[in-house]
């Protein structure tokens, strides 16, 4: 189902839109992850289908036996959040594999696959979101400070 299409990017034979963005895994692992990232068509009987809330909810596809591997569906999100999360997830030592895909361009959702060394995947994803938030907060405060400094300097120069 999955073939290699250059370094880091893997494509599916069946659907032209179905690509993986830089999964840091071996071929067999990618196949395993690919099966899950693909979404609905690969549900196995052991997998739970969690629908938390209504339309704005996140869906989690994982298995009851193994909490350490899950696929999360984020509705109304795109590369903006998914790629940033992929970065923070990959930087977490508890994560063995992670990647994301947008199953179809006309569908506003993104699937994020997280496989961990043992910790529950949703906890790890939550922590990654937290990391990204803290990172953003630091960017914001540093930026505001830099702008304020620049304005002050400019003010003193023109005097």
């Amino acid at each position, binding site marked *: 189902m999955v073939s290699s299409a250059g*370094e*880091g990017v893997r494509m599916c034979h069946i659907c032209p839109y179905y690509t993986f963005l*830089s999964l*840091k895994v071996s071929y067999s692992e990618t196949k395993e992850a690919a099966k899950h990232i693909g979404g609905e068509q690969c549900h196995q009987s052991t997998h739970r289908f969690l629908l*938390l*809330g209504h339309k*704005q*909810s*996140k869906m*989690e596809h994982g298995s009851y036996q193994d909490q350490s591997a899950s696929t999360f569906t*984020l509705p109304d*999100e*795109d*590369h*903006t*959040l998914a*790629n*940033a*999360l*992929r*970065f*923070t997830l*990959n*930087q*977490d*030592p508890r*994560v063995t594999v992670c990647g994301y895909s947008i199953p179809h361009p006309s569908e506003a959702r993104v699937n994020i696959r997280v496989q961990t060394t043992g910790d529950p995947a*949703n906890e790890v*994803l*939550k922590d990654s*979101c*937290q*990391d*990204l*938030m*803290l*990172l*953003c*907060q*630091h*960017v*914001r405060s*540093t*930026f*505001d*400070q*830099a*702008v304020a*400094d*620049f*304005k002050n300097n*400019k003010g003193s120069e023109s005097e």
Partner: protein
Amino acid sequence: MPKIPLSDLPVLPQNHLPLHILLQKTRVSCNNDAPTNTEDIIYSGAYAAMGVDNSLRLDEFRKNFKVKVIKLSEEDMEFDLIGIDASIANAFRRILISELPTMAIEKVLVANSSSVVQDEVLAHRLGLIPIQVDPRLFEYMSENDVPNEKNTIVFKLHFKCERKSGERRTVYSHDLKWLPSGSEYMLPTENSSDPSSKPKTYTSFTSSQDSLPEFLNNPITVTPGIIITKLGPGQEIELEAHAVKGLGQTHAKWSPVATAWYRMLPEVILPRDIIGEAAQKLVNKCPVKVFDIEDMGDGVKRATVARPRACTLCRECIREPGWENKVELRRVRDHFIFTIESTGAMPPEVLFTEAVQILEDKCERVITVLS
């Protein structure tokens, strides 16, 4: 293959990366045929064999992250983001372009238009005019909402080119007049004979917008000087334009930036001294004048990299055979030169802060749903 005893294998450096790997990690090399090492190494265990932890440590990030403002005016801004990953910088860029709200003209009620420009083309042109108002003062209008003073801005355009003048006249964006009390056009009513019912307009403002403290001495305007259309003698345009709040992902007219982009900091290295005629040749090769010549004394002239930031990586300097070894072009992977051009609704520094805020909100939403 002969067996090598374990003790004879070269010792891998521990706890630090060898130079060539560090180079792969922190720089993109721009070679003659194609750039290499373009992919980020973000996996936390990528250098585990060398005892190097590649995971994200926030205190480390806080220590290394820097912002340098290069240029700042009311409309555009250039700044350096140093020590951040491309995926985060790109998230900011994408949010700036498509997920920050602004006000833009969405509905145009044409009472009269004898201009040669078709109504739909005219409406499209009006939609693209930036409105100089802070969108945070307004609410979104959903499908079932009635246009009111909280979610709609109404502009009027009435322009006539007199037949007598015999000249063509140009209609500019600043000919749009703000109507703080809302639409002046009456809704067609079914039983107009009923005198008790108050005639209704296309908007239902309960109060005039210019009585709000934000707009009291600060009328809402659009960017002046944009040509909307030209009218010939005898032609006339009379219309009302209703602006609402929206996002750039719906239509580019709601994008608060003309554009927002970044580039990685170029790095130009001369591994060996280039002197004499070759130095002059190198200086002449570069179309953006990255190189200079310095006098070494005794008439020896050496090429130096004076303005690496100006480099566009056109690779003209390494195009000729043999030059690829003399000049190394690289990009610093975690140094972004970010440029924001605002359309005027909000100053660029506010836009960036808002964009970061939106990414934070997205994370928070995911956390809330997961817990």
